């Protein structure tokens, strides 16, 4: 997708006035938050599982090179072909090469955020290969030519009516008089259209939620079963996974899956957790003849071993965005990157550059709700603050902000000057505002008073009043 994060403010403004979007966003709050709260309350060990999940990933990241090698060895032994890609470009070239060798015309795709990150769809289409998204939400946004607005619910920004309009626009081979007023008929239509695509595809491509070093296994997690049809029917299966997806053992994956589904959709377990190891075996009546895994770095090693290290624990559950007041207000598209919400605001500057994405770490109130629900206990506000520090160090912050802060910080370090200046400033303001108790407009405070009144300051500061008393 095209990165539009530099235009975040305009994007957000548009989102706030988009009535369809605002209506659709209500479902995020109602849908995800309550369901999660319910399953979490029903599992007394949930917080202890979060600790265990965090520890598993910490251990793995500390030994990442060795687990990647172990994974590769086991996957190869099972007949898989492992490819390594340093950049998105490398991964695209590898995937195209596999598709060409397979003579692929269409490729079905399971939902994969990494594939969004490396923009594989446009690239394949440019090279004459038709990519077909098969996750219902992904399919819908592909029809619309939009990027996902949520990492696990890509079409959460749309209403049913919008989906109906898109289906009528694209599925012109179907009876124009058909009834699509119910969600069930929309689902049935997508199922029918995509069933043919599944059966006709030459290559199936999925992401991976996890790679298991012990057995060389890739794991996908879906509720629809689309990922499974994607990988079991075509002759070639390609898995694209970033380096931090590897975990040591099947036991470790089990712990992570216990927190993933609950955090993501509020299910005790996702419907389909599929563990794939190598291609079709002798005697197998089905399954792909080739099984490729593309392991991608694309900026992750730049987060490893430094202040952003914790972010590499992320298992892409989406809980942070589901609980984010900023996400609730504007949805995902305003972020202008494939990864959205708090996790996106930490990842995007690393993957696409701070110059591109500097807005995102700033657009947070640091309310901390994301961290409080993150199953991997990633300190998201702290990581966002680290990006602000980088921005400040590099002088990317707007001059007015730097200058204002600098003056203020100087006063704050010099109590006597501070007292004097605050006394002068608020003395006047307090006197002006005394009658009404507040201001409706005030020069230099437009950001505040555009939307709310500003309480008038006291005509005498607390500290001064205390001093008067003591004297």
């Amino acid at each position, binding site marked *: 997708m095209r990165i539009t994060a530099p235009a975040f403010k305009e994007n957000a403004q548009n989102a706030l006035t988009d009535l369809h979007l605002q209506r659709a966003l209500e*479902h*995020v709050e*109602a849908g995800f938050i309550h369901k999660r709260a319910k399953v979490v309350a029903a*599992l007394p*060990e949930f917080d202890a*599982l979060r600790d265990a999940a965090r520890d*598993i990933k910490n251990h793995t990241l*500390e*030994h*990442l*090179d*060795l687990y990647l090698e172990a994974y*590769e060895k086991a996957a190869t032994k*099972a007949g898989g072909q492992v490819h*390594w890609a*340093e950049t998105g470009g490398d991964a695209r070239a590898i995937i195209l090469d596999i598709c060409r060798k397979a003579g692929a015309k269409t490729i079905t795709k399971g939902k994969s955020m990494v594939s969004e990150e490396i923009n594989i769809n446009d690239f394949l289409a440019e090279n004459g290969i038709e990519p077909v998204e098969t*996750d*219902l939400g992904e399919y819908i946004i592909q029809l619309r030519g939009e990027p996902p607005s949520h990492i696990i619910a890509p*079409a*959460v920004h749309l*209403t*049913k009516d919008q989906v109906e309009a898109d289906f009528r626009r694209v599925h012109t081979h179907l009876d124009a008089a058909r009834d699509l007023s119910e969600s069930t008929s929309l*689902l049935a239509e997508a199922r029918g259209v995509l*069933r043919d695509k599944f*059966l006709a595809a030459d290559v199936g491509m999925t992401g991976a939620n996890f790679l298991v070093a*012990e*057995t*060389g296994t890739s794991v996908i997690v879906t*509720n*629809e*079963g*689309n990922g*499974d*049809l994607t990988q*079991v*029917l075509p002759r070639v299966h390609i898995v694209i996974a970033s*380096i931090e997806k590897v975990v*040591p053992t*099947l*036991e470790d994956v*089990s712990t992570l899956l216990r927190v993933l589904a609950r955090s993501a959709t509020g*299910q*005790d377990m996702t*419907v*389909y957790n*599929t*563990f*794939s*190891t190598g291609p*079709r*075996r002798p*005697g*197998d*009546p*089905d399954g792909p003849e080739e099984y490729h895994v593309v392991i991608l*770095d694309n900026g992750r*090693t*730049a987060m*490893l071993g*430094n202040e952003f290290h914790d972010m590499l624990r992320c298992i892409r559950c989406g809980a942070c965005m589901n609980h984010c007041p900023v996400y609730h207000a504007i949805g995902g598209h305003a972020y202008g990157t494939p990864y959205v919400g708090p996790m996106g605001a930490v990842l995007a500057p690393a993957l696409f550059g701070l110059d591109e994405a500097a807005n995102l770490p700033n657009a947070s109130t640091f309310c901390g709700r994301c961290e409080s629900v993150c199953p991997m206990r990633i300190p998201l506000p702290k990581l966002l603050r680290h990006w602000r520090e980088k921005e400040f160090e590099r002088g990317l912050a707007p001059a007015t902000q730097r200058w204002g802060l600098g003056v203020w910080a100087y006063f704050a370090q010099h109590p006597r000057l501070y007292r004097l200046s605050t006394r002068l400033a608020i003395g006047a303001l307090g006197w002006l505002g005394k009658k009404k108790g507040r201001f409706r407009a005030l020069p230099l405070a437009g950001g505040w008073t555009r939307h709310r009144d500003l309480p008038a300051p006291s005509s005498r500061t607390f500290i001064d009043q205390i001093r008067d008393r003591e004297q």
Partner: protein
Amino acid sequence: MSGRETVLGKVRRALAVSGAEAERKAAVDERLANPVAGLIPERGQLEGAARVDLFCKMAEAVQAGVTRVASSDDVPEAIAKFLRQNNLPAEIRLGADDRLAGLPWEKTPNLTRKSGPSDGRDLTGVSHALGGVAETGTLVLHSGSDNPTTLNFLPDTHIVVVAADDIAGDYETVWQRIRTIFGKGVMPRTVNWVTGPSRSADIEQTLLLGAHGPRALQIIVIGGTA
């Protein structure tokens, strides 16, 4: 330099390691050689009938149907009855699983059985599960000619037979069993955990069953009553 060396080199530089440190290697080798189960929720530690009951309860909570039968001899009739009650044709597709082949199908002469993988047009598939997991009502199936993976996903209705004795409390126990059957570090090509029928909430967060996989999942549990 190959992509492999580049990526691994970057990982090692970031971690300030060479990859040859004996201590790190030993830690990794040990963890992979002797996988240790993590925290198992209490609900995954039930025994006997209580465990099977929890499995059934959790499966039903995610919209799977559950039929309990006393012995494997009752399975064909249970399948026929389920199809009748749901107005489905008396026709099933199944793999070459010996346990399924050995059932007394003569009791249900009107039930047509087809074998081999699904071509996408079958209405009902029947599989035998390797096991179940009580803590979430999850079925564990694996690929092979006995129970082709396509059968888990293509038919509209999926009927899965599981023996109560094969229902474990937790996932970890099933992994141990897979290691015993297939050998350490070896996995079947595909292992499917299935928890309820296929679903999607992609349109306005409304839950709908039967997205791409089966709209209905019927589990037949053999034995296990107290």
